[in-house]
């Protein structure tokens, strides 16, 4: 741009030279610096991908990945998992009646019992999940329909929730707490487990409802406005979500540390799932101090208080019992992937070795005549 323009400066610059008295002193030497940077001679590592350099990598990867894969596979296989579908879709299933006669407003809860048996005992801690299918928690309208500052205990947001919560923002001209579609559709089935002794008596299995939500969520991200006491007062002037049967401060009246916004069931639900088929951690069955398995093999009954309707969107409801390893739940993918990749690498390593060998020979023979 500038170069094409007439430039008074430039003309001035030429003046001394043009007049001719510009001696050597005024003429600046334009010689570029002889530096590695300017001459593009920076020291550099110049790797070349040849069979020779890649070969060891292939063998190393093969040798490392196959054992890792086997380890992962075994770990995953050792995990015990049991999944029970209690949707009640077909006539034969125990929850059929409940699934048919559904209404949000019914005051009388519908319960059903699903018997199942464990073929093998579940050792150590057992984690109890509920699973939903065809439930799009990842729908955009749904995902954004929440007010994080309200959930973080902000009092202003409590009184006037974010617009994102529409159409679950106000009801009866009172702000909804917690607002939004996610909160509104909180999963409200109650699941209980009973062990049927061989003699026929039922023993309730203790289900722990703490430790199911992320620690940071429970302690930082979610907060009750004005502390955990007197939630009734704090939430005065707000309305419960339309689909809820009770207010947010009645979620767990027995435990103030698990009530209101910091109720762990609520927090777990509020972490929207990535895919339409998802599980959420419901309860934990801690292992017993003695050597007996947490869940011995035998007959069990799953008692469901059937509140949550899924029939309208062809959803399924499941209860999952699973033990956990350091790598999470049952997941054969990683093990298989590692074993496959490791073997392929190893195989390719051999192929490359052959190529390299031939190439080396040829190179050698080509060198001799020259």
């Amino acid at each position, binding site marked *: 741009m500038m170069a*094409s*323009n*007439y430039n*008074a*400066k430039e003309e001035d610059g*030429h*003046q001394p030279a*043009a007049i001719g008295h510009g001696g050597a002193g005024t003429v600046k*030497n*334009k*010689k*570029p610096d*002889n530096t590695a940077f300017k*001459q*593009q001679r*920076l*020291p550099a590592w*110049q*790797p070349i991908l040849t*069979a020779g350099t*890649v070969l060891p990598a292939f063998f190393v990867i093969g040798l490392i990945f196959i054992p*890792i894969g086997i380890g992962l596979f075994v770990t995953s296989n050792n995990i015990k*998992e049991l999944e029970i579908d209690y949707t009640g879709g077909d006539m034969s299933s125990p929850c059929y009646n409940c699934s048919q006669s559904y209404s949000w407003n019914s005051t009388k809860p519908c319960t059903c019992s699903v018997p199942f048996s464990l073929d093998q005992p579940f050792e150590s801690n057992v984690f109890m999940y509920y*699973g939903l299918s065809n439930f*799009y*928690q*990842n*729908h*955009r309208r*749904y995902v954004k329909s929440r007010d*994080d500052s309200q959930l973080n205990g902000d009092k202003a947001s409590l009184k006037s929730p974010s617009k*994102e919560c529409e*159409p679950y923002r106000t009801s009866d001209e009172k702000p909804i707490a917690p607002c939004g*579609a996610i909160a509104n*559709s909180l999963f409200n089935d109650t699941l209980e487990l009973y062990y049927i002794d061989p003699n026929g008596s039922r023993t309730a299995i203790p289900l722990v409802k703490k*430790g*199911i939500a992320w620690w*940071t969520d429970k302690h930082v991200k979610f907060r009750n406005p004005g502390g955990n006491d007197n939630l009734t007062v704090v939430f005065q002037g707000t309305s419960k979500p339309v*689909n809820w049967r009770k207010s947010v401060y009645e979620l767990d009246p027995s435990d103030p540390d698990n009530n209101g916004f910091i109720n762990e069931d609520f927090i*777990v639900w509020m*972490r*929207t*799932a*990535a895919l*339409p088929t998802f599980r*959420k*951690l419901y309860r934990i069955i801690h292992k017993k101090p003695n050597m007996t398995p947490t869940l011995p093999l035998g007959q069990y009954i799953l008692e469901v208080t059937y509140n949550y309707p899924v029939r309208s*969107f062809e959803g399924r409801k499941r209860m999952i019992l*699973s033990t*956990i390893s*350091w*790598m*999470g739940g049952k997941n054969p*993918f*990683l093990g298989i992937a590692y074993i496959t*990749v490791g073997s392929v*690498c190893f195989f390719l390593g051999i192929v490359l070795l052959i190529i390299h060998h031939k190439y080396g020979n040829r*190179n050698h023979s*080509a*060198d001799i005549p020259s």
Partner: protein
Amino acid sequence: MLRWIRQQLGFDPPHQSDTRTVYIANRFPQHGHYVPQRFADNRIISSKYTVWNFVPKNLFEQFRRIANFYFLIIFLVQLMIDTPTSPVTSGLPLFFVITVTAIKQGYEDWLRHKADNEVNGAPVFVVRSGSLVQTRSKNIRVGDIVRVAKDETFPVDLVLLSSDRAEGTCHITTTSLDGETNLKTHYSVPETLVSQSVSRLEALHAVLECQQPDADLYRFVGRITVTQQGEEIVRPLGPENLLLRGARLKNTKEIFGVAVYTGMESKMALNYKCKSQKRSAVEKSMNTFLLIYLGILLFEAILSTILKYAWQAENKWDEPFYNQKTEQERNSSQILKFISDFLAFLVLYNFIIPISLYVTVEMQKFLGSFFIGWDLDLYHEESDQMAQVNTSDLNEELGQVEYVFTDKTGTLTENEMLFRECSINGIKYQEINGKLVPEGMTDDLPDRSVSPLSREELLFLKAVSLCHTVQISYEQPGDGPGDPFSHANGFSSQMEYYASSPDEKALVEATKRMGVTFIGSHGETMEIKTFGKPEKFKLLHVLEFDANRRRMSVILQTPTGEKVLFTKGAESAILPFTTSGEINKTRVHVDEFALKGLRTLVVACRHFSVEEYEEVDQRLHKARTALQQREERLAEVFSFIEKDLELLGATGVEDKLQEKVQETIEALRLAGIKVWVLTGDKHETAVSVSLSCGHFHRTMNILELVQQKSDNECAEQLRQLARRIKEDHVIQHGLVVDGASLSLALRGHEKLFMEVCKNCSAVLCCRMAPLQKAKVVRLLKTSPEKPITLAIGDGANDVSMIQEAHVGIGIMGKEGRQAVQNSDYAIARFKFLSKLLLVHGHFYYIRIATLVQYFFYKNVCFITPQFLYQFFCLFSQQTLYDSVYLTLYNICFTSLPILVYSLFEQLVHPHVLQSKPVLYRDISKNSLLSFKTFLYWTLLGFCHAFAFFFGSYILMGEDTSLMGNGQMFGNWTFGTLVFTVMLITVTLKLALETHFWTWMNHFVTWGSIAFYFIFSLFYGGIIWPFLHTQDMYFVFVQLLSSGSAWFAIIIIIIICLFPDIIKKVFYRHLQPTSTQKSQMEEDKSSVSSEYDSAESWSRGEDNWQLLAASPPPAQGPALCSPSLLRPTTRASAAWTPCAATRRGRMDAPGWAGWWSK
């Protein structure tokens, strides 16, 4: 009145007549009905903006760029409709780009304003109402009389009225206009030259008529009518009377002139025009790719929209009980919703066309172009000139050149003329120790110095020393510009000749050595000293040189009162008009000179009788005063005068070849570049220079297409040549074409001509006019293959060709800086071309090609998971990644590695590139941006994206827990997992592509990944008070706390990159390109040699010599050539430069043998 209004409104152009009438000192005629013409004021406006219009105008200009406009649209869409990503994600980068560009342009404009103000406010002296008034430059009006003092520049285009010299001449330099450094004499008309003072000027009544402003610096037609004692005297005005704005007054104390063209109408301002934008092949393919991606984007958006509606047809998906719509959503119209959904998808996927691509490409080009200027190998020690980059847009085009069009004089040769031989009256002479020695005589004849020259010899020398336009400058100009003769007498060593043509200078210097010294021209007198005896000649007329006539003449009055015409010029321009003298012998001599590669000029004279001269004088005067068609009429008169000549002799001036021209041309040829020499020289000279510089080989079959008179003849000859080429396609062919035949061939037989040309490995065009050079370039450029052309030249006659070619290179030579100013790159010597193309071109090309491909690749990787995710979220436009990641991906996380790569990458070490020009073929025809490679990168991107997404998807499986405490991840963790895998893969993919790992590459590659981790930890570690969602809170930490996630990240990355590595290894071993072979070779050799030695090896301008000479001959080929696995034909060609160089040297003296056949 009406007309005045229309003029004011700009409907009527103010210049309606073909001429403008200027009343000197604005003394308008007193009669009433005079309507003054309106002229522009003398304000120079080079700035584009004012304070007020900067913002709107700049924004408008910026958004005219299609890419900026596209991003603006996306941004506006985001503002208007409810979109999945916040407007910030595209607004911020756009704002950044626009702001940076605006600041840059604003700063440039501010500089221009400053320069304008300086120029417009410069003090000038104007004669107003009888006195000299100081005013500002911008206040000068047309018709004002301006005084300019010594060494000042002219503030306006002036017609010279008078100078302090009695003969009314002045000297100027036009360095800043056309770069010519010589002094030029300009004249005033006799009637005004006496008006040397203000009071005398006051008495001057004159009207000046001249043409309307035009841009041609060398054209001015006008006449001045001076009223003296009631008598009107009309005088012609030409370019020699016009002092151009921007030129500088020299050797003259002061001048007065009348302003004719002011301000933006001055010739300098009219020459402002911006250079036409050249676009590189890479940019063109980049735009094609962009269009393809736009297609992909539209396809994805349309597909998503359609699928969304297909899905939504059922209420249970559209609006399940848990996810009700708002009233507003329910009530808005279907069509509007459809459109807004489509736009939302467009916005969601728009990152596939990244705004940062443009920013990065521009930065890469701008920063990368510094390396050319910094290169020591392109620095010319003697002239202290480094390579100069005028445009950085074409860096990569240097790696794509297929045709080089080179000028000969000053480009292949030094343009340092040295008088060698002459032929006088049919006898050949050589200059030996400042004496003319007839051929066959030795210079040890003692009496030679004393013996007087023969009449013919003397006349010849006088003719040579008089027939020119050489100026003299004196060492001490400070002593006042008085009479130059007083200086010259006695102290001739102090004077220096300045000539626009180096031939003239060489000739005048030669005659000086031989005893006939040109002392100076003073007004209408030229003085020479013949062996100490001064002689004064009256200069009556100068018939200037022009390219069509190819000769120039002077008409002189000898001291004895005789009127003589001396003329000199190209032999073809003079010999046909000679009637006497040793015509045939001279013709033979001229051909012999030409064979030796000398530049020949023929000198002739003509004696006028008194009557003849009167007729000549009259005709000349008439033609010179003509207002219309002056050129044509002048040409007519000139040809009338320059006939019936008496041949005096011919001169042979040597123009030395530049060093290493031969090697350079050979290297270019090996690189697959065809070299065409386009020269104005005569056929024989051109051929001999072509041979001596290696352009033509001794083994070549030289075809000729010269001196074709008629169309049919030319066509017949062309057909014959084509046949000959077909018959004999084993050996190489060279083609010689001359200008006249070329214009015939181009007129009707372009196709045939092109066919012949393409089959010739070397083409030489001689006798070319500047425009013809450009025409040849255009012909090649527009031929069906659309080859990339490069033109290289040093003179003003090469400018048109330089501007026409894809890449124009100027040689900073002796013929001014015009070529340099109009070029894209300027280098000091022709030999630098090989490094510029083979090394810099190669580097820039591979860098930018990979940059472009990689950019598309990484954005496919980025956006495709987002697209795939729509299939799992009911096409609800839910983003997979958080907004911050969307925004920063291109700006922060992945920008630096590719930028550093594109600045420093070297596939092969420079010295290897230069010693093996064949490597250039690897990248020719835009091969790295071919559709195949583009497809490869795009498909790779898609495959990787599928791997990221479905890898993570399968990992989640039926949504099992991935954490040791049984807790669950959510959608944001899933997105972050995909993003993390993608970021690392994409960065490592570039690392795989990188062959030249400097510390900076390491720093930015590992730094980018580290930065991503640090940033994510920080970003997720805080509840951000000003954000309304805290989606990412601790998501990243939770992800990293999962062992499975780590294992998954590693395995997915390896799954993505390993096929690529395998492909690379297999291709390298099974189908290695020559670049890869030389990499291996280099690798091997670098094992043994220290880096430092390689450094010194590459250092220095003498690569060629090093390669050819430093190792003992037996090892020579081994060093030059890679000891390849399979010595293919290509590979064997790699070491031929060494052999060819040596052979070429031996052959050089032998070309004459070929010619005599």
